[in-house]
């Protein structure tokens, strides 16, 4: 049985900045293999697995989570051997100064995000956040050595080691959306045991952070009737607006939005109540800023649902989740699929 905490930690430790997901893709392919009839890596790098083929008259359901993480990309090496970088996905510039990073060059290269020291910065300067263009990575090398180790286009990640917190919470980078990946892997395991009559595919997609690009292409290839995206959403902290947040530890956030299929949202809620799985409602007024947006309109179009795992400090190196939320998400997802496999005639009573 997949332990979601351990799976999250394993996934988090792996590198896969948007557009350079090969290491995590390889890891995920291996993890999916025991549950899959076939695993395929598409032209953009997404991992698409077939868990079971549909029996006649049953729909095909796609489970998606994105495996890419935000990071930076080397754009230039200057005369003193410092690296210029751009952001790859939404990087919070406010926390970059003096961060330790790994430049994924010819070999992993240690670096520090350069900043003026506080002894020199005046009070006013300390309130400002440098633009990406004003930042440098200090790898402690001459230009000559830097050129040997690093090339423009190499990805950069912030150094971060996962650890357990009080009350079983876990701090781990890239939990957006490796927590979702862990939920899909766990759901795949539960689904395999149940052997439903519907078709089930799992998509671990690339480049969500740079515009849901992996889902656009793989959604077409998957050619499913129902797409269920698993992503993360905001868990409340006192500096955040309450109406935009769920709560850590209170279960998956079931998405309701004009761009999602309402009957799927309703079915998630009904199932959660029936199975006594804690849940929260997340209402969005338009698109959801998740892969559900792309999957819904991929190819011929699909009905879509969205489950989000509450997460604190999104897009920082210290993202925090509660593993029970991941397990609950996986169970709700799996149960939805298993029920679909019991109801002949396509999209069933619920959908």
């Amino acid at each position, binding site marked *: 049985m997949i332990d979601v905490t351990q799976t999250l930690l394993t996934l988090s430790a792996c590198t896969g900045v948007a557009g350079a997901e090969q290491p995590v893709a390889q890891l995920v392919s291996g993890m999916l293999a025991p549950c899959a009839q076939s695993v395929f890596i598409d032209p953009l790098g997404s991992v698409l697995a077939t868990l079971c083929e549909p029996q006649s008259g049953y729909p095909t359901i796609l489970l998606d989570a994105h495996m890419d993480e935000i990071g930076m990309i080397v754009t230039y090496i200057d005369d003193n051997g410092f690296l210029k970088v751009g952001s790859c996905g939404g990087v*919070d510039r406010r926390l970059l100064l003096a*961060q330790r990073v790994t430049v994924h060059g010819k070999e992993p290269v*240690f670096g520090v995000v350069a900043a003026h020291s506080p002894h020199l910065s005046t009070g006013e300067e300390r309130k*400002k956040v440098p633009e990406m263009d004003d930042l440098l990575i200090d790898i402690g090398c001459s230009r000559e050595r830097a050129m040997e180790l690093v090339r423009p286009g190499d990805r950069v990640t912030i150094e971060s080691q996962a*650890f357990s917190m009080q009350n079983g919470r876990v701090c781990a980078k890239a939990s957006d959306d490796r927590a979702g990946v862990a939920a899909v892997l766990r759901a795949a395991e539960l689904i395999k045991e149940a052997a439903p009559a519907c078709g089930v595919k799992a998509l671990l997609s690339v480049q969500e952070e740079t515009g849901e690009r992996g889902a656009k292409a793989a959604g077409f290839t998957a050619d499913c009737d129902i797409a269920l995206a698993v992503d993360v959403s905001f868990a409340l902290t006192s*500096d955040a607006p309450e109406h935009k947040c769920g709560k850590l530890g209170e279960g998956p956030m079931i998405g309701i939005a004009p761009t999602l299929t309402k009957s799927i949202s309703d079915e998630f809620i009904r199932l959660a109540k029936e199975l006594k799985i804690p849940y929260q409602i997340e209402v969005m007024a338009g698109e959801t800023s998740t892969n559900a947006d792309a999957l819904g309109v991929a190819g011929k179009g699909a009905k879509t649902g969205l489950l989000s795992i509450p997460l604190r*400090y999104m897009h920082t*190196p210290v993202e925090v989740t509660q593993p029970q939320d991941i397990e609950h998400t996986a169970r709700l997802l799996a149960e939805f699929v298993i029920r679909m496999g019991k109801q002949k005639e396509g999209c069933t009573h619920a959908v």
Partner: protein
Amino acid sequence: MLFDTLKDLCMIDGPSGFEQEVAREICRRLDGKCQYTIDNLGNILAFKKGKETPKNKLMISAHMDEVGMIVTGALPDGMLRIGMVGGIDPRVVLGRPVTVGPKKIKGVLGTKAMHMQTKEERSTAVPADKLYIDIGAKDKEDALSIVSLGDPVSFCASYQEFGEGFICSKAIDDRFGCAVLLTMIESELSYDTHFAFCVQEEVGLRGARAAAFTIAPDVAIVVETTTAADISGVEEHKQVCKLGDGPAVSFMDNATVYDRELYALAFDVARKNGIPCQTKTLVAGGNDAGAIHVSRGGVRTIAVSIPGRYLHSPSTVASKRDMEAAARLVPLLAAEAANL
């Protein structure tokens, strides 16, 4: 030896006022090698006999404390409010792991996601009084059953060698100075020498004030880590000093106008022994010399500092070459200053 000692010392947590663990490790290394006492503030005052008693009573000092934070409150949602201990730029702590209190509880300095920030918020640093630490507590009561108000908070950051001869660590300022003093104590000295491992430098040069009074030296050498801004884009005259160009010797900073003769002597000694050495080119910062040189009737004082980039952050960067050069220069300078 120097770098092993430095690594061991850097990995110990000791924000100002909470230097006990650092002091314990230093005392362990002093046992059997020299006489020492611990004063009322927690300073370690050590004395080692040399071959001769010098004309000038010599004191060499470094500080044991490092910058950090302190728990000032717990919020209803279980988050901890903190104050900065020492001159920390709040921009270098956001989004980083820390350890809290004697039980070494791990936590993070969190922030709401950038998706929920306004354009202005994205370009504005989170001020110190808005920062909070998440240890995973459910609520205030849960938090205060694990940590206490007044608990020290330290950076959770490893010691790392990288690049072409550099070290990145927390607390290089000033465990490097402590490591130099320990290395000297391990060696045979030409002259009787007093060593002060001081507390509370980062919160107002406080330990050194008492230490200098008790030792009552004629000449003092402070071994420190100072700001280097030798980064692309910083104007040459604002770079202060450069990594790799040897220890920086200051003529003046915000706390001290240094002894002119000792300043000249430092460069003479460096030149004669082929040790690289540079001038700190900006009047900025300050260190224990500020308290020492005005102790009692006045003390002739000089500071020898290694340049450090990103000082007062979890990721201070210094050059191994500079460290080796400083570790050579300080004893040679002390021997010359003994009879100045």
